């Protein structure tokens, strides 16, 4: 087997890819980029109505905070995470024309898709946090400095998964059908709509192995309760994500030279 000609990641091109991705999603809209903020706020209003008025949902340990802030702080990072993976999985097949004609480091495509999705949702996240503050929830803004590295770590995790799924989907097209239900399953098994204290003992220990549960817990702690509980688990998490990212990149590059044959 021949050694592939490695093409390096080009930052200007990567930036262009990210910008293109963001513009692509909002280009057709009349109001353009304002949807980046409007859409999350509208969604927030919908959740406030559904969960506070219809379901009358409550979380005992966050009774004074209220359900909507409790959900919102966790929900936006999750949306960024899941949407990034779903969009990126499709990205290699969607950019087949480019891959077949120009030699470049193909990992840039799923990575740019994940990055663009994260940027868009983080803008929305900020808007949601500001509105929550205006509505009377006290957000611990100082801890935003600690939220940032957590989000960054989550971004790395999303990138790693996107590298795996986008490479697999070139060969196994069925993944496009399998992935959404899997992600939905992940959503409901992660304490986003509920608190992990609702779960029976046995499931609580299982949840400890869910990296997303760790991320969600950190967002709530930092922004709503103003607590910074970074113990050895945080270190393990960083270690796990880094190793996983390395494995994913190796995995992706094993296949990337052959994409053109299968697109």
């Amino acid at each position, binding site marked *: 087997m021949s050694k592939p000609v490695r093409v390096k990641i080009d930052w200007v091109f990567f930036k262009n890819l990210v910008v293109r991705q963001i*513009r692509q999603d909002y280009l057709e809209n009349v109001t353009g980029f304002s949807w980046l903020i409007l859409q999350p706020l509208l969604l927030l209003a919908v959740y406030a109505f559904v969960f506070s008025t219809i379901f009358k949902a409550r979380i005992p340990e966050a009774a004074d905070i209220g359900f909507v802030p409790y959900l919102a702080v966790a929900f936006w990072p999750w949306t960024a995470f899941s949407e990034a993976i779903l969009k990126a999985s499709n990205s290699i097949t969607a950019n087949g024309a480019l891959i077949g004609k120009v030699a470049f480091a193909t990992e840039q495509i799923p990575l740019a898709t994940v990055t663009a999705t994260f940027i868009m949702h983080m803008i929305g996240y900020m808007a949601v946090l500001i509105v929550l503050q205006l509505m009377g929830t006290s957000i611990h803004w100082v801890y935003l400095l600690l939220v940032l590295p957590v989000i960054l770590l989550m971004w790395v995790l999303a990138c790693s998964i996107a590298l795996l799924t986008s490479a697999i989907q070139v060969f196994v097209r069925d993944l496009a059908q399998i992935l959404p239900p899997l992600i939905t399953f992940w959503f409901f098994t992660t304490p986003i709509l509920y608190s992990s204290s609702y779960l029976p003992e046995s499931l609580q220990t299982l949840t400890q192995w869910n990296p997303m549960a760790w991320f969600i817990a950190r967002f709530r702690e930092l922004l709503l309760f103003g607590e910074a509980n970074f113990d050895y688990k945080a270190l393990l998490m960083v270690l796990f994500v880094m190793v996983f990212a390395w494995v994913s990149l190796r995995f992706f590059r094993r296949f990337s030279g052959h994409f053109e044959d*299968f697109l």
Partner: protein
Amino acid sequence: MDTLVRIEDVSKIYPRVHKSRERLQAFVSLLFGREPAQGAKVLSNINLEVVRGQSLGIIGENGAGKSTLLKVLTGVIQPTSGRVMVHAKIAAMLELGAGFQPDFSGMDNVRMKASLMGLSSRELDERLDDILEFADIGDYIHEPVKHYSSGMVVRLGFAVITACRPDLLITDEVLAVGDESFQKKCIRWIQQYLEQGGTLLLVSHSMYVVQKLCQKALWVHDGGIEQCGDVFSVTQAYLAWHEKRNAKEKEKQIKATGDGAYYRIENFRLASEGDDKPPKFAMGDNLDIELEIYSPDDRPPVGVVGVIRADGTPVYGVVSDNEAVAPLKLADHYYRFRLRFTGVALLPGSYNLSAHSMDPEGMRVFDNRQMAFVITGDTKEVGYIRLPHEWMDQTSE
């Protein structure tokens, strides 16, 4: 010499990817570092070296492997075996507007493409005016690319290439799309680029372009290198090969005669007295011809009879259905024409009588027969045929 690209013993076999099971198997094979199940072999054991300043034209029939060779060279696809070494900044134009996003404006796409070719933002800003001037598409640059004509796309694509100043320029039959003046502009640019020491790999079906721009040519045939060398000798060999192949095809068509033909000639006779071979006739005799054709679907076929000089010059021919003549049905599937050339006005010499059978629509020739005959006589007239004539009596004037 400064080698920009060297490929050694490169083969490319496309994996089988049609069924989803094959794709899954390929996925598992690759995961464990093995080659996937192999399908069509497109390149076999190619060795090639491109040195700085060289201009190499790649020619060959469709499907010979030219584009695959370029894709391997540019690193778009991995060869199945062999080594590819590249020490150059390559700008490849394998397809017009590759990497162009139809929804975005020409300007956005120029930025994208330029960054894809490794141009920094500052370099692009410096050269943007040159790009726009070269593309010369005016205000269309702010329109989405989906509204462009294919010629405009190639203008823009080539304009970005000109700004990249690559060590090695690779183009795959893209110049053919632009209009005459843009093609000339591109050729001028490439010539200038070559004069400044640039290196070129060009795939083209236009021998004119190849001879104009390249010193050397590479003829790819069936995935291998058929010939490589001076541009004129290789292109001539290639053209000669094409002519030969065309001649062979023609021959094949002609060979489908006799029993193999669909509407075949069963019998072709020229009535003659005496047993001379070939039969002899005096000028002014009648030629009585019989042509029997077998019709497989029992519809009345069309017959053609003609006279050809021995040197191959056609003299006269007549087609039955043009004269609304139907053959006589002798039996099922068997039809006969009878034709008389009365008082044949052919000048003395050797001739061939030629007959063709055609389908009932008179669209296709299926079979042919020829038969030699000789016209005898004693005349000093020249030409093939005696035209009825009369020297005018002028004494009464």
